């Protein structure tokens, strides 16, 4: 993975984290800036890793679908494929945010499907299926972690309030 791709994925991760954290910060009045920044950095790194795993997971799924292993080395991000992900913060866009976020990921996923189909010999639709399943699986996994963190932080906040009382 080239340095440019790494930088783009980190930026995309922070962008995705911003898109998720801003509405959360708005719903939780009184969040200090340092906490928002900390959440942004931590969340950004997690999201970057998830983005980095997307082509790898899609490739693994394609291997499972194929009867014989493909001759190519694997599917990797290129700067052109990863660049649109920097706009992931669009999730926080008022009113249309979730729809635009979905459109962005559908577009990026469609971009990944072409190289995957070419490298594995799968049909384009099968490649799309692998990319979509990989994306959905990673999305569900990271959402589960997100909810766990939110639940734990809410529990901690409740306990600290009770101990003060």
């Amino acid at each position: 993975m080239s340095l440019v791709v790494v930088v783009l994925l980190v930026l995309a991760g922070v962008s995705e984290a911003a898109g998720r954290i801003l509405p959360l910060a708005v719903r939780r009045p009184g969040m200090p800036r340092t906490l928002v920044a900390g959440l942004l950095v931590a969340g950004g790194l997690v999201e970057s890793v998830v983005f980095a795993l997307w082509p790898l997971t899609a490739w693994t799924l394609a291997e499972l679908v194929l009867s014989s292993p493909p001759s190519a080395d694997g599917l990797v991000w290129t700067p052109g494929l990863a660049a649109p992900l920097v706009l992931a913060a669009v999730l926080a866009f008022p009113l249309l945010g979730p729809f635009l976020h979905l459109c962005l990921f559908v577009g990026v996923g469609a971009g990944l499907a072409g190289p995957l189909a070419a490298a594995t010999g799968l049909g384009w639709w099968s490649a799309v299926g692998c990319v979509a399943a990989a994306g959905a699986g990673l999305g569900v996994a990271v959402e589960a972690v997100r909810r766990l963190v939110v639940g734990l932080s809410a529990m901690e906040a409740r306990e600290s309030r009770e101990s003060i009382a």
Partner: protein
Amino acid sequence: MNGFVLWAFAIGPALLAEALLARYEVLAYGAGWRSPTTVLPKGVPYARGAAPDGPPGAYLVYLDGIGKRRVRDSRDGGQLVKALLARAPELRVLGQVQPYSPLADPLADRPVWAWLQRRIGLLLFLHNVMQIFVAADHRYRPLYNRAVGSQIATQLRLAGYRPDSGIPVVLLSYSGGAQVACGAVDELHAQLRCPLLLIMLGGFHNGANDLSRAQHVHRLTSASDRIERVGTWMFPQRWRLFRGSAWNRAWRAGKITDHPLDPATHVGPRSYISPAAQLPDGRSHLDRTADTVIALIRADRGASVVTDDRPAPNHSGRRHRGMRRRRRVGSRRR
């Protein structure tokens, strides 16, 4: 082709940047990074109209459309407020509320925006449109409503309003101001416990805000008002299909009355507040709008006022109680 290039490389990115930055103010308010402004510039009164030493007939808060960018100005140069004050001296009128700023910070007073106003004035309108979208988004709406509701309550207190006094508060909103007016209902009720009357003039809103705390909602509308109609198509909560939405619940509860102001348009030379467009009876559109608003306020207060407008059928084909069929304030359920 040139149009496409302009959109792709100039207007498009500007829209995107503005939309992404639009949430900053509500975030800063929610996180407590900045406190809302409460002090008005020198020479600007907290209210105009009825003297503050006696209880006025009602407090009227005017929530302007997306042209609002200063404490003083409004799109029509303040003509509607002036017309209301001239016709109804018993009202105390507040026009300084910033509907599109959770921090009550007038757009034209911010250095960057003042610079932009001189060069790309359209961006100020765009900013306020985006604020309506922020106010309509379910993720930001509760806080936005609280911010603007608190701003209105603060300005009312500074203008002499006393909580529990029973004096009606009228939220007169134009266009996107309706989104803010609907959102402020709960906060105003919680802070001031006041009888609330909403009058929407070409109201553009998403219909998601609970109106159960409002005594009544009067919808001044026109078949020629395309912008208001866009709002009814754009937001699912305004569709009849979503029977459980706050707007549809209010319809079924008989809380909403339509008042057609045909052939007025939303903006332009034939708008609701045009002093030039004439009606067959010799009045201007502005005169009729002002007369209607005052008649509704007085009718709500129990005065027997006869007006020439009749309630229009609502979107489900039924007729709601019109002004002249409304019961007196004292006998209405609170």
